[in-house]
């Protein structure tokens, strides 16, 4: 599973970087616009370790933010599956808040919480939370009629049982949604660091941009891609194990 993910990433990254180099040489652009392959290599040798540590810092915040989002989305999703006023309100709020561009809201968060861990965590959570919540809502509000009908008729249906049935019946979909939202958590953390934090790979990319150093950015993107691929594989593996356990 891991090697397939990495292989896919290397293909995408390779296509991207080869195309960039082709454009550079076709249009005869200087190293200022697009760095040469040698410059990218030398930069990679120079900054790889330091950037890897920065990416791990970002990834750790993204993972914590992702876990918080999953937890919150499941709790809120369970409440919002009710066809009561609260349920409807939560659904409408989720749709509306998701429509706000986080880049516009982020500076306010940084003013309130400063540029430390809390802001990065909150923004990472916000970016992956709302899409996650909407997907989980979709799963939890969809009755599994043929199974639920039996428990309803026999008067043994409880809300816990209802949630369990719906999760069990949609476990593959749920794992896919959670895995997919992991990339959003990573993106959210990088966006937060890019805007105002003082740590992580987003902050490092910001500095490289100030220095107009595209080679550093290409190296950062490579490490981000590998790390995200590994995280996605871990999630898929955990989902696979969970599924196997549940299905006996």
């Amino acid at each position: 599973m891991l090697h397939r993910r990495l292989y896919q990433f290397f293909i995408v990254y390779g296509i991207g970087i080869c195309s960039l180099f082709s454009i550079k040489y076709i249009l005869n652009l200087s190293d200022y616009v697009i760095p040469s392959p040698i410059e990218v290599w030398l930069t990679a040798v120079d900054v790889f370790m330091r950037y890897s540590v920065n990416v791990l810092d970002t990834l750790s915040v993204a993972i914590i933010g992702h876990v918080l989002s999953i937890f919150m989305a499941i709790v809120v999703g369970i409440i919002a599956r009710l066809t009561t006023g609260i349920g409807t309100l939560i659904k409408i709020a989720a749709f509306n808040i998701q429509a706000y561009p986080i880049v516009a809201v982020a500076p306010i968060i940084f003013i309130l919480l400063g540029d430390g861990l809390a802001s990065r965590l909150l923004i990472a959570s916000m970016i992956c939370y709302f899409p996650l919540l909407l997907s989980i809502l979709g799963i939890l509000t969809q009755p599994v009629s043929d199974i639920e009908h039996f428990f309803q008729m026999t008067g043994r249906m409880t809300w816990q049982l209802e949630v369990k049935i719906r999760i069990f019946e949609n476990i593959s979909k749920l794992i896919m949604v959670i895995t997919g939202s992991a990339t959003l958590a990573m993106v959210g953390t990088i966006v937060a660091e890019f805007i105002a934090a003082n740590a992580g790979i987003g902050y490092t990319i910001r500095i490289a941009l100030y220095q107009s150093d595209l080679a550093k950015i290409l190296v950062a993107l490579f490490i981000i891609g590998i790390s995200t691929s590994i995280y996605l594989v871990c999630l898929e593996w955990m989902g696979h194990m969970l599924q196997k356990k549940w299905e006996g």
Partner: protein
Amino acid sequence: MKNFLKKLIPLAMVVFMVIAISSCGQKNGSSSVDPINYRLKWLFNISSAGDLWADVNGHFQRQGLTVNIKPGGPERDAIRELELGRAHFGVASADQVIRAVSKGSPVVVLVQLFQINPLQWIYRPQHVTIESPEDLTSKNIGITFGGNDETIMRALLSKYQIGENEVNFFSVRYDYTPFYKGDVDLWPIYRNAQAVIIGKRLQEANDPIAFFDPHSAGIRFVANSVVTTQKMLKDHPETVKKFTQALVSAWIEAMDPTNTEKVIEAVHHFDPDTSPEIIVEQLKITRDLTIPFGDFEKGGQFFGKIDLAAWKETENMMLNQQLIHAPVNIEQYLNVWD
């Protein structure tokens, strides 16, 4: 599946390249340059007063040129746009120019807009006393890591033999809260732009402000200049000359105190979020930074002068801080007009 991938990968590369290449404009000098695209360094504000004045008062039209002035921004890089053929002229800071030259970019400097770098550090004299650079010792100094304020501050500390471990650097971003709260003693600011706005706010709160100016401490780091490509200069020398003349004459007019009211109106039209009361203050300071040669009557004609010594000093600072790996002989890229 493997066969499919083998076909898909080259196809994806070709599609990507076709899109990218077609989105690049015509390379400068390949044919006519009408209309001319002029990319500024920052959003429309007082630092582009002369550029906007040229547009409003038909300076380019009188030279037979059609010019689109495009605002810059944090992610815009005029030099890259010149190379990609999306712009014919642009505004870039000296550190951008020197970095670009060090990486083989065929850029030429035409006009130096600011004779004194507007980048200074704001502080509160009630909390901090800065009478000489030595007073920076043990202060919390805001810098943008990777920005030119970092280069200037490090050069200043080095010049006055203040160890970097004797000051505390604070990473600065968009939010001024750490300065307002007093967590940071000195905050980097553009003297002719945000400084007027922030200063007014603090003075209204009875909190006096002062500025630490690296230029007066002997650090000459060149700020914004107008640039083009060597190819543009070679293939269209007349266009370059006309553009430069139009721009310089417009800047001189815009800095002329007799035109103050009309300039404020022009800048406010493009920058409606800044009030005319603020712009009038900004304009005074901009005049002092662009024409610091005594009064306007005597000094106006020297607007745009390329300060060769300051450019060399800027190059040396960048070299000493290893922001470039070898000398670039920047004087070869400065186009000094008669």
